[in-house]
């Protein structure tokens, strides 16, 4: 790694830590039960929304009602996205006249965006109309993120409330998260992005003449789509002149802002944040990286505020950083070391003042190695899934990092809201393990952890693991699964493992070589995304419901303090051990085998 690599990583972490503190305090106000400066500011708008929707904001929902409201809202959203894609040829704002999306792809995309995954089997600029992107995809970017935050806030209330039945009101939490957190931040960020060159308009695509005309060779096909051959059996081809370039347009900045802030990750364009219209400069890249961690990081501190002990929030944030920083540095170092297969050729891949060097396949010049490697770690530590470099072309170890960060259960920052409630499940498991060691009933934040809580926490921890392992096995056993693989050897298995890990942890990034827009992959990954998102959220709400009903146990000499470095290390170990034990065998067949065979 070069000095500048370290400087850019250090700068990112410093700015992040400066921003999460005020962010955490602000969100604690937004979700406070008592009215305060923030919620009084938007009280009239809020009241108007509740009246129009026939919602009683004073209703305190039990966990079952909270879960039901969450589920109903998300399933309706999912159906709306499906309908928009199927009906887009007959709807307005479709200047490129894109046809209806196929039923399996539309279903996959609808689940993908409603579950905050944003796995994309399609290419944005050649599939989705502006209307579908705006009214379907961007709306779900907001609402799935707001849903994650709402569920988290309800789970935290389970720890805070004593002998209570309710966890709060889903509609109020949803509206507040959207109105006070996501919308203002998105507006600010969208304008920052436009200032750097991200497009924002409703124009049709623009054709510009090329400075140097060129041509390409096209293979002629008959009506059945087979290559036509001449008498000697050679394929018939023709030269096609290229004199113009079609520049895509659209309301991109507004969607990209929330795609990053809401840890959604679904690109407006196919190349996602590698596309110069989606991420034009190093500064836009820096803003996009910060935006991914801002809310998940801030929520850790919001949690500390809500439970009345800020150290608890810092401890969770420290745990996340403890896992994240070494893995991020590892990814950057692996990419900077480059690809040995190219080193054998007459290629200069050394870092210098004139070039980034390293493994530049699938990377953009303006980002080089460090801004790409760091982005890859951030987007997979959080369940964002936006990419600014093609993960399929990462070095074996550089690709192992993002894959494993997803497999850890998306709890190292993770999705907005969902990352922290996942981490809370691990925290409950950690205090339980500590309790077993000393032979005491475990407690966390003044609540006894008993059989029911442990069942729900274990379910939340193990469900994504089980989905990854089982569905990867299914995919490599079925011809329709193997058919999508693009790269030969161990890397091909990595493509499958990565795809299933991504969907089963609601990340959404991909080893893009895998041809996943087929009925088999659309259905398999659609199921993974749905079951990773909603049952897990419901299990955590069930845990919170039971916790809220309990009395508060005062701290005693036997209580394990959960704000100390000791607990931070214990929690990090639990996360890593579960992730390592479950996935090392599979990783050995993919990235590790590829590393060993690549001539290092």
């Amino acid at each position, binding site marked *: 790694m070069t000095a500048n690599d370290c400087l850019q990583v250090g700068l990112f972490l410093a700015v992040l830590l400066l921003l999460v503190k005020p962010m955490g305090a602000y969100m604690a106000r937004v979700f406070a039960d008592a009215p305060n400066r923030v919620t009084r500011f938007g009280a009239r708008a809020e009241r108007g929304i509740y009246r129009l929707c026939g919602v009683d904001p004073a209703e305190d929902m039990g966990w079952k009602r909270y879960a039901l409201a969450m589920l109903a809202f998300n399933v309706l959203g999912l159906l709306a996205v499906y309908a928009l894609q199927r009906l887009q040829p007959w709807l307005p704002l479709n200047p490129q006249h894109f046809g209806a999306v196929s039923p399996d792809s539309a279903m996959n995309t609808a689940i993908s965006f409603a579950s905050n995954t944003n796995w994309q089997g399609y290419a944005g600029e050649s599939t989705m109309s502006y209307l579908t992107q705006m009214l379907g995809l961007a709306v779900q970017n907001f609402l799935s993120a707001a849903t994650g935050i709402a569920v988290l806030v309800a789970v935290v209330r389970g720890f805070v409330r004593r002998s209570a039945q309710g966890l709060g009101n889903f509609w109020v939490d949803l509206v507040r998260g959207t109105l006070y957190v996501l919308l203002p931040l998105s507006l600010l960020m969208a304008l920052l992005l436009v200032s750097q060159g991200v497009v924002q308009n409703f124009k049709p695509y623009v054709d510009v003449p090329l400075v140097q005309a060129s041509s390409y060779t096209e293979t002629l096909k008959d009506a059945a789509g087979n290559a036509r051959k001449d008498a000697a059996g050679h394929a018939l081809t023709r030269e096609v002149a290229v004199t113009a370039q079609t520049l895509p347009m659209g309301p991109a900045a507004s969607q990209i802002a929330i795609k990053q802030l809401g840890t959604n990750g679904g690109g407006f364009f196919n190349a996602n944040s590698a596309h110069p219209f989606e991420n034009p400069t190093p500064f836009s890249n820096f803003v996009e990286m910060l935006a991914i961690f801002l809310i998940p990081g801030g929520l850790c501190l919001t949690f500390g505020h809500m439970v009345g002990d800020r150290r608890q929030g810092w401890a969770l944030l420290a745990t996340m950083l403890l896992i994240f920083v070494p893995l991020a540095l590892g990814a950057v170092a692996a990419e900077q070391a480059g690809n040995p297969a190219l080193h054998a050729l007459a290629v200069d891949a050394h870092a210098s003042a004139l070039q980034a060097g390293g493994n530049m396949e699938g990377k953009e010049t303006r980002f080089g190695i460090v801004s790409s490697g760091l982005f890859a770690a951030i987007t997979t530590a959080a369940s964002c899934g936006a990419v600014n470099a093609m993960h399929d072309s990462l*070095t074996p170890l550089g690709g192992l990092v993002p894959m494993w960060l997803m497999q850890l259960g998306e709890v190292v920052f993770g999705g907005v809201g969902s990352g922290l409630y996942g981490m809370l499940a691990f925290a409950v498991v950690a205090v339980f393990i500590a309790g077993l060691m000393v032979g005491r009933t475990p407690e966390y934040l003044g609540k006894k952890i008993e059989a029911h809580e442990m069942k729900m926490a274990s379910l939340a921890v193990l469900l994504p693991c089980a989905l990854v392992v089982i569905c990867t096995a299914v995919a490599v056993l079925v011809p329709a699964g193997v058919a999508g693989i693009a790269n030969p050897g161990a890397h091909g298995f990595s493509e499958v493992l990565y795809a299933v890990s991504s969907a089963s942890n609601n990340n959404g990034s991909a080893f893009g070589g895998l041809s996943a827009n087929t009925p088999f992959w659309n259905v398999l990954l659609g199921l993974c995304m749905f079951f990773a998102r909603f049952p897990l959220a419901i299990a955590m709400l069930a845990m919170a419901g039971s916790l809220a009903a309990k009395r508060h146990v005062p701290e005693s000499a036997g209580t394990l303090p959960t704000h100390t470095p000791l607990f931070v290390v214990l929690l990090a170990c639990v996360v890593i051990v579960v992730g390592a034990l479950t996935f090392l065998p599979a990783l050995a067949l993919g990235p590790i085998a590829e590393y060993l065979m690549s001539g290092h």
Partner: protein
Amino acid sequence: MGKLVRNALAMLVLMTALTGVAYPLVVTGLARLLFPAQADGSLVTREGKPVGSALIGQSFTDPKYFWGRPSATSPMADNAAASGGSNQGPTNPALTDAARQRIAALRAADPGNAAPVPVDLVTASGSGLDPDISPAAARYQVSRVARARGLPPDQVLALVEAHTRGRQFGVLGEPRVNVLGLNLALDALRKR
């Protein structure tokens, strides 16, 4: 249950209006007001006519132009309507073959140049539309471009340096040269 679904439906419609209609329209309005050129794609014009976007790479294969990053878009390189990378893994033989061909093409266009080829000239970019190359990649091509245009290499090198942008704010990203901008400047030289 019926009430819950009605609530959910009303909430979805209202939130869609807010985040799916009002929000993008406000952003579009403000973008048009504050950054009109960027919002419309940072178009580059020559003699009043657009010839591309400063942010989107174009394919250059003529020895008299600087060549950009290899592009894996289909069916032709730098197809801005279908962005994407090669998605070839590091151990894929196709990746090494492609690199070998690119080196051969560069060597054929500039037989006297035996320097190792900067890595960004032999690897496909992530978007397939990378507008930039590294300063090392630009310098590697100076001798070829100078010969093809009958210009002194020093003059071409000076032009490269004038078009080299450092790290943003001195820290972020990597130094780079915008290929379209550099090539337009080269064409402008000839006309003078």
